[in-house]
């Protein structure tokens, strides 16, 4: 569930079980509601609130979400009368603090692009590289491609060469229509690889695109080029 409210991004929503607050954050064990109501937890790992009349999985309106967020923040402020939310949030990650976090302007809400560290950048890069690495694995593995004749992409395209991702979209003469890179990936999966094409939202297709594009870093985009 996603609520359009900045504070709510820092909330955990759960039904009494452990919940994750964002990727890789420590689990927050939420109390179980006796009436089976939705329990929403705050990222501090301690504060939580039961939402009357809303069951887990049911949608909330924007107003309800705002109420929940406000209630949680009020509760947090009651427990920490002298603390500043932004500072406390930043301080909660000891490793980040150790590197020296740029001081956020007092009273402002924490902004992702307002204050990020080298560590943040590393995390972003590693997450991206992870997708590329996944794509590389699929690119080199006939089974992961769903092929039936033991042919994998790298056999004709070492290091993703001769795939020209920077030229798409382009009129693919042999198909008789304009194609995107993914159309050609799927064409290759169907033909030389003799597999089934991936649906457009298939994570494998995204990973393949990521790998192929990553091999062309620095090459100018030239859509339509032949």
């Amino acid at each position, binding site marked *: 569930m996603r609520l359009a409210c900045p504070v709510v991004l820092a909330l955990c929503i759960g039904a009494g079980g452990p919940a994750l607050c964002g990727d890789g954050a420590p689990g927050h064990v939420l109390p179980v509601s006796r009436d089976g109501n939705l329990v929403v937890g705050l990222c501090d790992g301690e504060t939580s609130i039961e939402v009357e009349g809303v069951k887990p999985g049911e949608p909330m309106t924007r107003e309800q979400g705002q109420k929940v967020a406000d209630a949680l923040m009020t509760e947090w402020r009651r427990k920490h009368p002298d603390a500043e939310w932004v500072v406390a949030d930043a301080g909660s990650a000891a490793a980040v603090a150790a590197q020296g976090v740029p001081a956020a302007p007092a009273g402002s809400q924490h902004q992702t692009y307002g204050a990020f560290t080298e560590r943040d950048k590393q995390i972003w890069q590693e997450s991206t590289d992870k997708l590329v690495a996944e794509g590389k694995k699929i690119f080199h593995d006939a089974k992961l491609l769903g092929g039936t*004749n033991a042919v994998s992409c790298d056999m*004709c395209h*070492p290091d993703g060469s001769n795939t020209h991702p920077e030229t798409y979209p382009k009129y693919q*003469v*042999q198909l008789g229509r304009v194609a995107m890179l993914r159309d050609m990936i799927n064409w290759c999966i169907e*033909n*030389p690889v003799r597999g089934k094409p991936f649906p457009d939202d298939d994570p494998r297709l995204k990973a393949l695109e990521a790998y192929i594009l990553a091999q062309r870093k620095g090459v100018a985009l030239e859509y339509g080029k032949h």
Partner: protein
Amino acid sequence: MAGGHKSIETKHYEERAAFFEGLARLGALSRRGFMKVACASAGIAAAKGLITPQSFQLVEVAQAAEAGTPGFTFAYISDTHLYTAKVNDRFIRSILKAVDDVNALNPQPDFVLFGGDLAQLGKKEELELGAEILKNVKAPVKMMVGEHDWFLDMGEQWRSLFGPSQYSFDHKGVHFVTLMSVEEKDFWTARGMTPEERMQTVAGLDNGLQSRFEVGPAGRAWLEADLAKVDKATPIVVFSHSPLYKYYRNWNFWTDDADEVQAILAKFDKVTVVHGHTHQLLLNQIGKISFYGLLSTAWPWPYAPEGLPKLTLTAQMNRADPFNAFDGCGDGHLDVLASGLVDKVYNLWNRDPVTIRSTYLTWQGTTARPPAPTLPTY
């Protein structure tokens, strides 16, 4: 293949080959005779939809007149990368097409070189299948080993089928040497790899884990000993699976001790190296040594992003058409001239054949440059 049936494609290429052969023999005709035949053949070609009348084929004839006389011819099939029939039939159909091609050569070549990588993953069944298919070649077959044949059992099966991986022979005044150039330093023991993992690693071109190819100290010592008894004026033709020079390290388009091997070969006046592995029309000249890369029957490889020898003519293969499984693939033959130098014909299956005169290489591209192709790239 062995039976009476020939596919439309085979017949088509037989006709085309005969057409070229005929034209080449007419090279010595008078100008008038030449024009007469040239016009007639162009008419035939145009009627077949084969070429446009102004295509390079007539230039071929003009060139034939000045080229050296072929002493003899040998053909090649290379890099077939066979899986068993159950896994992949496409590569099998490709090698069968190549066998058809060399069997259709008239006159027949003195022998057929197999350029290595018969199998894809070095399996017994793959190698046996390849051996079985190559039995259908009418001319004698000279085998060369590739890394795909070797690294599952370090060549045990291959040697039991085809004999030693390094050998030499003399044929009509030319000394031929087949080298085992795809030795690799042990990268697998420290990583605890199984033979299958070792093979799979070597099979990947862009797999940085493996070592670089080399002839190795033992191989070079063998080569020196073999050549010690050969006169310096004798033409030498070397077969190696990897190019005996340094083209692109990351893909193992490379022989690590190429400089040492070249130094051994440089003592001879006329040396030609014929190599597989790179799956592309690839030409190089280093000192007196001419290098010809062989086509694969299985799939073409893109030219590497750097290190490409400047004499290579990339137009035909720079961007093979993925929609045609045969584009960029093929086979071919080499004419060993009376002079001891070698002309090479790249029989690209989906393109017009390309003839490379030895003089194009030995004169560093200043003469005998083959005409540009008439077919567009995609």
